[in-house]
């Protein structure tokens, strides 16, 4: 097995080690301080002594398992839908409308401008005109969360498809006999897999943090359940909230590290032509800061919107 060659000079962010550490340190403080403060509040009793009573009592609270399970499957569905929708759509836009990509990018931003109340109102209106109770099904949150994550995910996948040089490799695959479906499955998706993974992570993270839409539609997702718990046992709710932030973060960190593993050692996912392409998921293109050398997903996860919370 051959090792991945070092990146060509000039392709990395040229920060000195000291500057990079300072930036990383500041980012770390920014992200971890609220979590640490929450954890501190959760493990102190009224006399200021250390206690895990609030946290341990939370596990016995009714509704935790069902809320967590419900959110987990909605998150999985939303992440899958994001990938299924974005990979072919962005590829199609690059191949058919390369000069009008900005139009599609602008359209992808519209969920940011749409207040959740309006979104829910629209969903209810649609629901009442259907022969079945659409708004009453939890699954309705899957397309809603996919749409809410679109502004972030679209840019990640768009940047990756752009860097992967999708047009030349598509034409090469077509000349070898590949149908459009085979081009997508065998060429494009493997080349942008890290970006798709990041998009899935962001979508899942959004699902675990979104409150407003779920609450307005009267679904007991994890954030809604946490809010209810907070009215009765604020210390326990804060402890669980900190955990709910840390646990996915650790999972996504592990996933990011795994993606940096064997496959990427074998060769970078970038178009190989006469010119050198950029990293498939430039951090700047995501709109969310991820320092070079750090797993993209962890900071993306932290930077992901926690709508309504």
């Amino acid at each position, binding site marked *: 097995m051959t090792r*991945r060659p070092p990146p060509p000079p000039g392709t990395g962010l040229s920060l000195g080690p000291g500057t990079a550490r300072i930036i990383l340190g500041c980012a770390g403080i920014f992200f971890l301080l609220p979590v640490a403060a929450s954890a501190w509040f959760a493990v102190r009793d009224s006399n200021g002594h250390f206690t895990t009573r609030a946290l341990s009592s939370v596990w016995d609270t009714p509704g935790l398992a069902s809320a967590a399970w419900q959110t987990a499957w909605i998150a999985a569905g939303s992440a899958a839908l994001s990938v299924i929708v974005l990979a072919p759509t962005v590829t199609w836009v690059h191949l058919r409308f390369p000069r009008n990509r900005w139009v599609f990018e602008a359209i992808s931003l519209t969920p940011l401008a749409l207040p959740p109340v309006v979104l829910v109102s629209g969903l209810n209106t649609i629901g009442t005109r259907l022969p079945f109770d659409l708004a009453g099904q939890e699954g309705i949150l899957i397309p809603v969360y996919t749409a809410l994550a679109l502004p972030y995910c679209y840019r990640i996948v768009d940047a990756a498809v752009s860097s992967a040089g999708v047009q030349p490799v598509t*034409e090469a695959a077509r*000349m070898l*006999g590949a149908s459009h479906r085979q081009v997508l499955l065998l060429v494009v998706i493997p080349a942008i897999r890290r970006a798709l993974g990041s998009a899935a992570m962001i979508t899942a993270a959004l699902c675990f943090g979104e409150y407003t839409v779920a609450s307005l539609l009267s679904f007991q997702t994890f954030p809604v359940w946490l809010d209810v718990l907070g009215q009765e046992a604020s210390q326990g709710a804060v402890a669980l909230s900190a955990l709910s932030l840390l646990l996915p973060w650790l999972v996504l960190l592990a996933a990011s590290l795994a993606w940096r593993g064997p496959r990427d050692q074998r060769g970078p996912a970038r178009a*190989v032509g*006469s010119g050198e392409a950029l990293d498939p998921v430039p951090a700047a293109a995501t709109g969310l800061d991820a320092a070079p050398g750090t797993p993209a997903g962890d900071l993306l996860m932290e930077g992901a919107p926690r709508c309504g919370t």
Partner: protein
Amino acid sequence: MRNLTMITNAAPGQDSGPAAGTVDLEQVSLDYGGALVLDNISLHIRAGEFLTLLGPSGCGKTSVLRIIAGLAAPREGTVAIGGTDVTAIPAHRRGAGMVFQAYSLFPHLPAWENVAFGLRLRGMNRSRRKAEASRLLELVGLQAERDRYPSQLSGGQRQRVALARALAVAPSVLLLDEPFSALDARIRQELRDELLRIQRQTGVTVIFVTHDQDEALQISDRLALMRLGRIEQHGTPAELYDKPAARFAATFIGNASRLTGRVTGPRRLTLDFTGAEIDARELGPQAPGEQVEVFIRPEQVQLTPIPDGAATITSVTFLGSHLRVTVRSPSGETLEALADTAMRSALRPGDKTAVTITGSSPFTISAAGQTPPSRP
């Protein structure tokens, strides 16, 4: 010959006989957003032929290739491969292979899997396609690099992988779009030789696009010279070099100095530069007494340095195997000549020299205009 025909990439209904590799373009036109890119192109390419589309940048040669490949659709006209009209057949079913200028290798696959990609699409099992890929990589001299990823290969190696990948599916026609333009001179020459060897070995029809006239002259069975979306002239390299149909062909293929002369009789003229009467080949109807443009190749010029020579040497460039010398007449006309390096000390800028036109006859064009471009 290697067994490259186990898997065929023939288009549905396509002939697998002697005509399998023929390509026919009939009155093909193409425009992009109203701008005419190809204007009524007709061309017949024989099976097993190595045809080069040559012309300046933007003349439409890559567009011709993309239309044959099925990556662009003509506004008018038809494309046939192996005698079958493929105009409406999508690229992946045309039976053509293509090598791109930018290689377009799949970055996530090692060299052998890049080569075997087309075989995978045809359902060949992994062990067989690995063996096939290895044989093809050996053919292009890359057996040792078969497990390397494209990012770990040099430009020349990437282009070899791209060539092997295109050959893997045994295409009836191989299309090459300036495949060597990003490579240095030594690698280019190596790959040209290799391509010719493989083409002779496999017998595949090759359509090669380049704007490099030396490359085109070296490797082609036949050339099609393009300009402004039209084919100006086509023929063997020697025909285009020796018998250009028009001013553009005369100046684009090979070096030629443009002088003036006056017609004295059928295929005879007096050259203003030397005052001597010489034989010439006409490119159009010319009347005695008419002033014409005369195109002279550097190798047709012989220089004899003498103190009372009519011309003055203006520059001497050492090119390794020979010298390129530029001389100027008293009237200000300039002429380029090639000279042996042994004359290096005798040919110095500022010296006088006599000029003689030797070898094959120069060709002339009426000064009033040029002959209309020939149609294929």
